[in-house]
């Protein structure tokens, strides 16, 4: 029982990270109906920015932990949003109105570009940072097993909850959220009503990148090691999460992330860790067979 609880905590933490990245996929899909294949690499770039920022802070002897993490978060969000904006500007905007395949290919190109750029400028070797936040609390002690939650795990789950609440509010309650939803439904009509569609799309890319930046900082603090290739695995998993939850749906992305995190943790716990990816994708296929638009996705209705 204690063992299962520990694996549940592991799964929730991992799922929260997947969910944060998945929201970036789902938001961009919602507004332009396309997958941003460079999103995983934006996440990777943010992790590198976080490593750089942590190293700089250490060089300036800033050791207060909350201060350091906040400073790193702000830096990472700022620069990563700029990357998100640049990707939209270079790979999507010039191709708006062309065939549907063109921006898909240019986004894959962007992904390869970012990966290679980081590999060449930062080197192919892993970049570690020394442990930032150590320790945790004992939740439950049984005769043969102690359930532990580390501060990092608590921080990841808390930050994710806060961001989810903030984003739901942003999308459902604010003027920007209304514009964003309007662009999703009908961008021509939205433009006719005097809303700057290009700017809304740019802002969506930047918001998605900002969430990826938070995930990047969390991953850097949690695992302590980054390399130029982490965007690929994380991107694929998060994309799967977005599809599983129903692409285009914000709570769906979070739910998808959590489900994938939990499947991975429990499969590794009770069955063979070798086959956990097989399990994850088998469940994705099963869900899509019975609910082609994902768990919380709305089926596409042809409007006449």
């Amino acid at each position: 029982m204690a063992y299962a609880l520990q694996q549940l905590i592991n799964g929730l933490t991992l799922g929260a990270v997947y969910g944060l990245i998945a929201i970036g996929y789902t938001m961009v899909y919602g507004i332009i109906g396309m997958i941003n294949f460079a999103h995983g690499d934006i996440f990777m770039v943010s992790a590198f920015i976080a490593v750089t920022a942590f190293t700089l802070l250490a060089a300036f002897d800033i050791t207060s932990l909350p201060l350091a993490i906040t400073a790193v978060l702000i830096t990472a969000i700022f620069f990563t949003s700029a990357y998100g904006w640049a990707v939209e500007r270079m790979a999507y905007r010039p191709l708006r109105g062309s065939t549907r395949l063109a921006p898909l290919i240019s986004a894959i190109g962007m992904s390869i570009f970012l990966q290679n750029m980081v590999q060449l400028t930062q080197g192919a070797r892993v970049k570690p940072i020394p442990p930032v936040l150590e320790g945790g609390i004992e939740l439950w002690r049984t005769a043969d097993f102690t359930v532990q939650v580390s501060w990092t795990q608590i921080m990841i789950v808390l930050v994710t909850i806060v961001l989810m609440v903030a984003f739901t509010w942003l999308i459902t309650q604010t003027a920007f959220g209304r514009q964003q939803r309007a662009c999703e439904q009908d961008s021509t009509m939205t433009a006719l009503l005097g809303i700057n569609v290009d700017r809304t799309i740019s802002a969506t890319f930047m918001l998605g990148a900002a969430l990826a930046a938070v995930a990047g900082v969390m991953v850097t603090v949690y695992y302590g090691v980054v390399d130029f290739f982490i965007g690929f695995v994380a991107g694929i998993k998060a994309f799967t999460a977005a599809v599983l939850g129903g692409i285009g749906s914000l709570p769906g992305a979070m739910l998808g992330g959590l489900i994938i995190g939990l499947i991975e943790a429990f499969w590794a716990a009770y069955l063979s860790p070798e086959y956990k990816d097989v399990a994850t994708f088998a469940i994705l296929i099963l869900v899509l067979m019975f609910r082609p638009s994902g768990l919380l996705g709305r089926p596409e209705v042809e409007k006449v």
Partner: protein
Amino acid sequence: MKKTLIATAFLALGAQAPLAHADLTVAIAGPMTGQYASAGDQIRRGAEMAIADINAKGGVLGQKLKLEVGDDACDPKQAVSVANTMVNKKVVFMHGHWCSSSTIPASEVYVEADIPMATVSTNPQVTERGLKNIFRIMGRDDQQGLVAGNYIADKFKGKKVAVLDDKSAYGKGLADEMAKAMTAKGLKPTLRESITAGEKDYSGIVTKLKQAGVEVLAYGGYHTEVALILRQAQQAGLKLTVMGGDTMTNSELVTAAGANSDNVMFTFSPDPRKNPDAAPIVKRFRDAKVEPEGYVMYAYAAMQLFADAATQAKSTKFSDLEKTMRGGTFKTVIGELAFDAKGDQKQPGFVVYQWKGGQYDYAAK
């Protein structure tokens, strides 16, 4: 007509020249340029010192040694062209190449030309192809699993040991060998699992290890994953001792795993600088401002091997040299060398090291 005659005479003279002066040409080959150039530099310094020492004692069979240096930049194609050049220069012995991927194709050229070679490449395939000219003065990738497994079985008797690998050819091979050696000595692994390399989250497997009460982890794979597992184990309140292979020599492990790296042990070839018989040579290198680290002493030993074998065989002909090298024992700065039928060292030179405060040293026996 006259010109042709002169030219012919000149050519004949040229052909005579190597016979006229009686030097023996030996060669080294390795990455003298490129990203592994530091290893090539070590080989060159070791070989130069050895040849100077041998010549100072009168050379081999009364002939002085002369060194040729080949640069393959660790590129298999360039390695083959270096090999052809060396064949043309009629070298009688080759130390190299360094990268297994260069040694393997180049050795096909040397075997055709009857040139014996001593290499430090560790891939099993180097000696598994039945070539009669190749001798390995370093251990094999698959021998270290045996050493590591025996060490675990002796040192951690009665403890729960998990064997894990990263599904790579190197990692799985090493983990299988470790598990086999442990089991043979009566310590059965509690868990035998594989993980996916390149991921970041190993909390699932860490929790599984904790549940099973595992204290020792025998791991086949690279240092990156070990660092992640150790960090996540610490967060989960699990104290693990890790036994790994030569990849754990990478100091990135210390940066990434922090103080946890003190729990990492690994197998690697013995440090020749610690060989008491080699102390005078080590001192000579240090006096010449060369730190005899890495492959320096191996290159020195390779030249000693050739000099010793040629002296014992009283010949530098391939058939005599090969027979002597295969049958004899040779005292070198890296210890006594003797070879089996494949050309591998009879004593697999692997010892167990342990990280301590960012440095590694021999682990307690």
